[in-house]
């Protein structure tokens, strides 16, 4: 009975979801909007995740946020094996013999299977959203922001990839009186940023991952000169007008979490007279995310990359910063 009613309800292909993978597109896909976040800035926050990132860090925790275009995701733990999707796919792209279940070369991202899947095991990653709708979603949490000094965090992916959209969104949020925070990798065109983004943000969380330009290129796909330059400029502005700027370094075993790199970053921050930074503990629980969207990563079997960093080690990393007068609490 199940198949019957589902097939009769097949929706027309959703062309909105068909995006080319152009990084500079005007309207981003939104990966997720997560309410009640307590770890992405002060207070209770709503985090808007943009899809698409100009870097390609090998350890990326959110592999689904790399590509700017839509993707289809399959979570085998949710699947009840009803095969409705297989029978409804117009492209015959679904096959249990395929280790990823979906043949992404065949799939046109038409969304029929997603619509028909009763369990939510199949889902479309990334959707277009109107600014008003995002703002409305965030605004309903305003009472929570008020009591916790929270607000909205724009994260990604990389939100500055979509300067105009981001600017518009920030403006609307500020009109609602909402505290705004942008998390960025720092790879953006400064003038644009200064003009379109800066007036509407209260806080910037700025990732400084690797100091050495070659290593940065090796692990993140691009050189970091622009990133560091932008940071220096923002820091000057921050010193002048009180803009909150926080440098953050993710601790990735053997890549960013090396004595050399951390010493370099701490030294860099010290020269800028920065007293406060943050180290982000490595979270090893991200590997299955790759599988869902049909990608692989080379660290699946690397022991350091699949376990938490021990507490003592964390302390050593912290002390590198503390010695230079930088708090990382």
């Amino acid at each position, binding site marked *: *009975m*199940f198949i019957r*009613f589902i097939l009769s*309800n097949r929706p027309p292909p959703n062309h909105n979801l068909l995006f080319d993978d152009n990084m500079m597109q005007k309207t981003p896909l939104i990966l997720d909007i*997560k*309410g*009640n976040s*307590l*770890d992405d800035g002060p*207070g*209770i926050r709503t985090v808007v995740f943009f899809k698409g990132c100009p870097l390609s860090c090998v350890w990326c925790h959110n592999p689904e946020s790399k590509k700017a275009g839509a993707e289809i995701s399959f979570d085998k733990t*949710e699947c*009840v*094996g*009803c095969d*409705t999707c297989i029978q409804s796919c117009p492209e015959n792209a679904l096959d249990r013999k395929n280790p990823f279940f979906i043949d992404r070369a065949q799939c046109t991202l038409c969304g029929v299977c997603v619509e028909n899947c*009763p*369990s*939510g095991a199949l889902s479309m990653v990334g959707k277009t959203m109107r600014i008003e709708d995002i703002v409305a979603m965030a605004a*309903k*949490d305003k*009472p*929570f922001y*008020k*009591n*916790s000094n*929270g607000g909205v965090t724009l994260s990604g992916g990389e939100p500055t990839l979509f300067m105009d959209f981001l600017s518009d969104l920030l403006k609307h949020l500020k009109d609602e009186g909402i505290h705004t925070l942008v998390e960025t990798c720092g790879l953006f065109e400064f003038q644009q940023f200064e003009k379109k983004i800066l007036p509407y943000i209260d806080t910037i969380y700025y990732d400084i991952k690797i100091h050495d330009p070659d290593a940065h290129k090796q692990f993140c796909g691009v050189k970091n000169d622009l990133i560091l330059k932008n940071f220096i400029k923002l820091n000057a502005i921050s010193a002048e007008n009180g803009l909150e700027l926080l440098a953050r370094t993710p601790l990735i075993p053997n890549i960013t979490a090396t004595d050399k790199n951390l010493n370099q970053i701490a030294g860099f921050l010290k020269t800028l007279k920065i007293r406060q930074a943050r180290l982000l503990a490595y979270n090893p629980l991200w590997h299955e995310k790759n599988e869902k969207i049909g990608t692989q990563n080379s660290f699946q079997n690397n022991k350091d990359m699949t376990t938490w960093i021990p507490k003592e080690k964390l302390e050593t990393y912290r002390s590198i910063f503390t010695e230079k007068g930088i708090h990382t609490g």
Partner: protein
Amino acid sequence: MFFFQPTTARIKFSPTNILLNTLLRVFAANFNFRPGLKKYLKSDQGWIDFTIGFRTDSGSVKAAVLFKNGKVSVSKIIPEKVDTMLTFHSDGAVLKLLGATPTEQIFMVLKGQLSPKGNQSYLNLFFFFLSLLLNSKQKKLMEKERKISKKELLKESPTAKTELSDDLIKRFGVRMKADTIDKNVKYLKDPFLSDYGLDNFPRVKKYLDIHFEVKPEVCPELPKLVTDWHKANGYETDKNGKPWNPLLRKAHAYKYLMENRKPLIRGNDLIAGTTTTKDIGVVVYPEGHGTMIWGELLTVPHRTLNPYDVSEETLNILHHEIFPFWSKRNFKEWVREEYDSPLCQQIDERFAIYFIWKSVTISHTIPDFPKLLSMGTSGIISEINDQMKSFAKNSNEKNTLEAMILCLEGLTAYSKNLAKTAASAAASENNPQRKAELEKLAKTCDQVVEKPARTLDEAVNAMWISWVGLHMESTNAGLSLGRLDQWLQPYFLADMEKLNSGPEQAKYIKHAVELIGCFYMRCTDHLPLTPDIANWVFGGSSSDQAITLGGVTPEGDDGVCDMTYIFLKVTEMLSIRDPNVNARFNPDKNSDTYLKRLCEVNLITSATPSMHNDNEVMASLEEFNYEIEDLRNWSATGCVEPTLSGKHIGHTNFQMMNMVAALEMALNNGKHPLLNWKLGPNTGEIGTGKINNDNIADKPFKTFDDFFNAFITQFKFIIDQSIEYNEMLAQAHQVIRPTPLLSSVIGDCISKGKDVTIGGAKYNSSGAALIGLADITDSLLVIKKLVYDDKKVSFADLKKAVDENFENDPALHAMVTKKVPLFGSGSDEAVAMADRIAKFAHDYYGSKKHYRGGKYTVGFWSMSNHVAYGTLTGALPSGRLSGKAFTPGLTPEPNASKNLLDNIRDVARLDTKNINNNIAFNVKVIPTPEDTREKTVNDMFSYVKTYFDLGGMQMQMNVVTSETLKDAMAHPENYRNLLVRISGYNAYFVTLNKDMQLELIERAEYGM
């Protein structure tokens, strides 16, 4: 007496019939010929005569055991009159019963394998006789069960994760300081009293150890004295054969009890008096549910949950002297005789649909302590004497007032006896400090309760002594203490004013903390009598003596004061389940500092206090037009329910109603599936299109509203039945247990000359606890959306899947659980549905006539019945599987949303006008270990404060991870005081039954 209608049709008897008859004959022979057993057939009033019948639904088995004049005989023919008839669902069930442990016996009843009808005391007596023969086997079985379950748990979690248990202990070591001082806090420099921890109070700490280590023991003192008095002075009639006025009878018996009970002072205590003669005593109220324990007297010390010791002496007293006297003289049996086993009572005794608390007690109110403290019993007696003049001789009013005086005299006599105990203990005491304390106690008990209290010590002692007194009058379930911070603050201030130096004041504050600590520990000196069934239905609950803190004064001023913080300090340090601490937060008057402190205490204790939005609770009571000063003086009662302190008999937990039963009955045309009992009206069969009732036009359930109406029809039916039973039991209380002492401290009873049981109080009502709101809402949403709106599945297919527990249709199960926006997901439709159900319940209960005047009220909290009722309920359209717990109170389903804020918003959005008996909204939050205390408290504060800003009524947080709970399940020895909030009350996790433990573990968990 239960009348059995013998059938004349010829029925073939089964082999089981022969076997049963043989076994019963063996049973009879044992009792007839073994003197060691035969002696149990006799009470001090003579042989105990009664008859039990046995039959199966099909008639394949028939037998009766007759106890008469010291002889036990077995008959193949069931006599026309039997006291208790046991009807079995199958032949197998017959034999199972005879070898069952008490717990198994209960589950046979719960699961419909056995339905007993008739006198329950005799049924329990029969079970007692069985256990005389079988108890060593029963004990072995229980031991074996325990071993197996322990082994299973250890297999899953062989080594204890001590870092988890240590983390809970470490919470006590971190203490925040207050950053502001509330305006009515006069003396505390740091209201959070962060300098103090339990180690500063060795006296109290010792009591805490006793609380956890001493096994409770059944105490026969109360029933023995009361029964003795009645044997000497008559029950139905007095010595001269004249019918007793129930009030006077009760009052004389009470006075005798209070004059003759042992006046005990626990070693080293600052407070005199005990509820029983045991360290931790279990009180038996023979006119209430006392005889329910009869069948378990031999096994109760060995049961897994909540074991009590029963000494041989106690057993003999209860069996020979007490229970036989009360076999028919209790609430349930009074109704059974008077109304001839009404249907409403039969439903109650099957447990799956509703439970009426009046079968145990009324209780659930707040006495007027301020009056008692400021006037003393002597002052109240003179008020009564004055009032007496306005009533005619021999009038009901006059008798009532006389009864009050007798009770107050009894209470006074007890405190005078305590004074003597203290004085003589002082005389023989060598330790000078203790000697001084005892001398002071002697003076205190001489002053109070007779005369007004003048100091905090006197006030606290007066309160405790009268608390004992009230518990001697009626069952200890949900009688609550009220606004102790408000009421004790004047005494605290008076004492402090006398002290000049800072160090003296600081010392006194420490004394006040210790005194309240002793008071809390006094409150743990007794437990309610719980037959094993109660461990399944009300697991882990003590008597739920609620204390209420904060809020506003009757005049509307900020009520948070020094004593508020002193009580919070004690709550934090002791972290015990009872007293059940409830905090009122008035958003207009109370400070954020106070709310943060509530959150901190909640974090440290992991479960208490429960927090109420003062404005919303008061708004929910608007319809009653209570006087504003009285309204502002509300206190939580039992679990969470509002009572206007000292003036209101709100019997706020008159029933635990399984609303989901109505849904199941609507899905099955009036039949309850598990009970296999067609008891409700015909509302139509799903899917067949057949109509069984002329009143239903056309096909049933053409629209969603048609089905909704079927649900409402079934719901009305069970509401009507439950209220009918409540009103019958209410009459039983008027005849069997009026409460003149309580009446003397409840507003207006004296001026009206009326006992509280017949409506003497200024305000009257009875409050229901309606269980399963989220489960019903979600189920109805699924039906509406998938069957009617989107037409994705036919009602018949959905019903079939429900009947089959979704086993054959995983895709449909996935769809109902994943594709319908549930209550708690932020869906407007879901909130509207919940409101629709709540509004119906509120309006319908509110429309029913209430015997004492006032109204029936409704609340959405569940004690632990969401687990018990869940066990007795099949799968639901919401996708909840058969036997699974419902959600606690009105908490949304765990998978309603990943975002806690959606839950918070939806619950806050509910229309509180429909909820005049409060709610229980459970939230499980877990702190990030690296976070500072301030950060965690601020996060909790943000949730609660915003929830209140949005119009939320009540919230309670469990601050413990599922991982910790799992560890505690396997390694209970590391978690003796792990406190959890069930729904409205607190319990120690390790004392809960397994289903309840799992329910807590499966609750949604939100990181902070």
